[in-house]
């Protein structure tokens, strides 16, 4: 026989003012299972919890109902109180008489009281069917996978590794460093990007807890939080990294020249190459697409000149597996291709370049040794026009959103231009200046006042060629006049877009992405680094456009999350998950189909006791099940139930009023 205790809360005046609490208690007492009912000012307070603890013991209660605020508020608090009294915490039910009654029916005390009574009846009825539940603990593999070796991936990897947790860092290109390694100086402090990044890159390579796997990609992820297994393809580098010393003889001799991605194709690299001098690891790889030895079987010079004999043209891609407990995705971003801007003559005029190309030009280790030049004739430009929002905030040609960083990097570029070419003049066409950030507005002021960049408010309408100049026409809305700037060089602040292979990655990881291809966080405000899938976290621009400070903070946040996840040897998990009884399961496997997490697998059990014949039944993977209950509703034979929300519990609620 069930013995229920009901504890009704005044919540100060919040509940007591709008419904008649004592009357509720009286009404509840009339339910025959209720052996004890009492009201109190603040049930969540320590004395309040004390009342509950005492009552449990003195009245030998079998379940407890607290009628107070929303369970989303204090369920945990009261569960704690129960377990302190030696009672299974899951024998608690909360009747939400504040959010669902006193606060929303303030003009009708009678109705509110009635409703409160019903809510209590429902809670009581449900609690009668409650069962003892115990937190599930799943073992954890304390190793993290970080996908992407940009600043986000580097930061996350270092922070996790510093907590003595092993990290596997997978980078698709031959070196880590990402976009930040291509930058010259960074806003708003103008400190040298390379100088602050390269030490971190070296740390990654030398860190005892980091396994760096460059020139590789993730193929497959299976398992569940704490117990993932990942397949990684190591692309053939045709160079034996163990023996290679990175002396550079090979790429100095290599006869094949290819456009250099690192310098945005502004100069050439060889077919065997390291992306850039400070590359980590500083070992070359052979670009199989262009190497004549691999394509035509002719050449082989690099093998000849390599003293260590590290070149191996027969090398194949290699698939490796790792056991991991958590994943940090940090695949960064791509730059939008401005080709659709036909009215600007993009693609027809050499002297229209993108901001990343400009960045490479002004960069000390860039193709032009830090001096911006006109690609058409190699002259140093005097008048440079910077155009913002190329692709950003442009539904017609690009994407709707604001790329967030263009305002600032363009400001930086005007200043860099001034530093490199003193007698130059920068014109900036903008729609808005978005300089929200520490020291950002001051930085813009610096550009406008100290270096005298001319800001014109308007979107450029057309660019056409006149002699060797580019005429840039647009409205300056401040004076309401159409202006034309005679430019030597035009720099387009192209939009930040999601990496094009993000959707594929999201599919293989089992996480969701938005219409732009950015990976989706679990909650836009309160869970910005988690994904909806437990144990997978997001760092940097792969989630949305960000500047470096934001990226680094998010990466560290991911690290904190991973460390938290790995705090114990096992992981505690909410017991409110599905359970299947083999007796009733007919093996129709509807549940297998509907489970959003693939948490249900099939299993073979004997037909009957001792019988050799086997039949198929469904089996829940406790670690994976998130407890949505989809399977329960589709189960024809009612073999499945969802702990905490069983059919008896809910039916009790329904019939109780």
């Amino acid at each position, binding site marked *: 026989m069930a013995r229920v205790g009901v504890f009704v809360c005044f919540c100060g005046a919040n509940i007591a003012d709008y419904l008649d609490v004592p009357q509720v208690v009286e009404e509840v007492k009339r339910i025959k299972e209720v052996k004890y009912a009492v009201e109190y000012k603040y049930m969540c307070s320590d004395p309040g919890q004390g009342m509950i603890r005492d009552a449990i013991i003195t009245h030998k209660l079998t379940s407890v109902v607290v009628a107070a605020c929303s369970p989303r508020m204090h369920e945990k608090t009261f569960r704690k109180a129960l377990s302190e009294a030696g009672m299974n915490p899951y024998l608690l039910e909360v009747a939400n008489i504040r959010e669902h009654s006193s606060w929303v029916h303030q003009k009708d005390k009678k109705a509110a009281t009635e409703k409160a009574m019903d809510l209590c009846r429902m809670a009581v009825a449900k609690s009668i069917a409650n069962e003892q539940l115990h937190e599930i603990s799943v073992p954890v593999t304390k190793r993290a996978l970080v996908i992407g070796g940009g600043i986000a991936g580097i930061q996350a990897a270092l922070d996790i590794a510093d907590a003595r947790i092993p990290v596997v860092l997978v980078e698709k290109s031959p070196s880590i460093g990402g976009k930040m390694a291509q930058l010259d100086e960074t806003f708003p402090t103008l400190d040298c990007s390379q100088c602050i990044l390269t030490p971190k890159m070296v740390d990654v390579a030398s860190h005892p807890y980091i396994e760096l796997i460059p020139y590789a990609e993730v193929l497959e992820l299976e398992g569940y939080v704490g117990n993932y297994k990942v397949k990684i393809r190591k692309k053939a580098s045709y160079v034996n990294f163990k023996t290679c010393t990175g002396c550079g003889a090979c790429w100095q001799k290599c006869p094949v020249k290819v456009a250099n991605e690192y310098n945005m194709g502004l100069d050439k690299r060889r077919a065997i190459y390291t992306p850039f001098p400070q590359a980590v690891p500083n070992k070359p790889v052979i670009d199989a697409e262009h190497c004549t030895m691999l394509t035509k079987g002719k050449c082989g010079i690099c093998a000849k000149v390599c003293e260590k004999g590290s070149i191996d043209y027969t090398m194949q891609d290699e698939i490796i597996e790792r056991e991991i407990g958590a994943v940090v995705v940090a695949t960064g971003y791509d730059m939008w291709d401005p080709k659709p801007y036909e009215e600007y003559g993009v693609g027809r005029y050499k002297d229209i370049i993108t901001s990343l190309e400009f960045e490479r030009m002004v960069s000390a280790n860039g193709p032009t040794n830090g001096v911006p030049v006109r690609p058409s004739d190699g002259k140093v430009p005097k008048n440079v026009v910077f155009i913002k929002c190329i692709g950003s905030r442009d539904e017609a040609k690009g994407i709707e959103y604001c790329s967030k960083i263009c305002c600032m990097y363009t400001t930086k570029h005007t200043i860099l231009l001034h530093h490199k070419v003193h007698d130059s003049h920068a014109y900036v066409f903008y729609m808005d200046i978005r300089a929200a950030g520490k020291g950002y507005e001051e930085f813009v002021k610096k550009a406008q006042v100290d270096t005298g960049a001319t800001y014109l408010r308007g979107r450029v309408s057309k660019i056409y060629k006149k002699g060797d100049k580019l005429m840039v026409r647009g409205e300056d809305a401040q004076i309401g006049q159409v202006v034309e700037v005679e430019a030597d060089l035009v720099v387009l602040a192209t939009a930040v877009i999601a990496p094009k292979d993000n959707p594929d990655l999201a599919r293989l990881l089992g996480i969701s992405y938005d219409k732009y291809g950015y990976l989706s966080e679990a909650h836009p405000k309160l869970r910005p680094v988690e994904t909806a899938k437990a144990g997978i976290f997001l760092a940097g621009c792969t989630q949305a456009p960000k500047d470096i400070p934001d990226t680094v903070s998010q990466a560290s946040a991911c690290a904190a999350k991973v460390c938290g996840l790995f705090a114990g040897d096992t992981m505690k998990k909410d017991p409110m998950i599905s359970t299947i009884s083999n007796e009733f399961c007919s093996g129709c496997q509807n549940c297998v189909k509907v489970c959003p997490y693939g948490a249900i697998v099939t299993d073979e059990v004997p037909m009957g006791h001792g019988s050799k014949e086997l039949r198929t039944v469904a089996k829940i993977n406790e670690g994976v099940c998130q407890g949505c209950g989809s399977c329960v509703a589709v189960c024809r034979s009612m073999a499945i139930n969802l702990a905490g929300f069983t059919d008896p519990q809910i039916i009790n*609620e*329904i019939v109780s009023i």
Partner: protein
Amino acid sequence: MEAEVKDQLVSIEKPGLIAPPNWEPVIMGILCNWCSYAGSDLTGTSRIQYPPNIRIIRVPCSSRVDPWFLIKSLQTTADGVLVSGCHPGDCHYISGNYYARRRFLVTKKLLNFVGYHENRVQFSWVSAAEGPKFAKVVAKVTDDIKKLGPLHLYKKENFEKK
């Protein structure tokens, strides 16, 4: 066939025709924990008032809602049922609310066929941020059910007997 269905419809909805004075309907609100229940909490915290007829049951996800629950409610205690979940695409459990939606449409057809008025059971999307919307939805449903009249004139006594 047509005629039969009509008859059934009348016979089941008939009790509704004799609504006692100051009768108030009971509406069973089955809400998913992550969106609609949170939304209803928000309605409370923002003190938005709505009719007191709804009795709320919390389920983890709208896909947990078994047609049985709707039928049972209408059979025993409720004059109408509101099921509410996350907006399509926002399901906390990735795709649960899609299952819920399909299942609900079928259930509705069935209930219709056996003669329940289509407004007896209703479905809505309410996100955790849509406090005001939840109030609106409840107001509308309550209004619809009031128009339809009672299904049960005996539920209170019924409970006492238990």
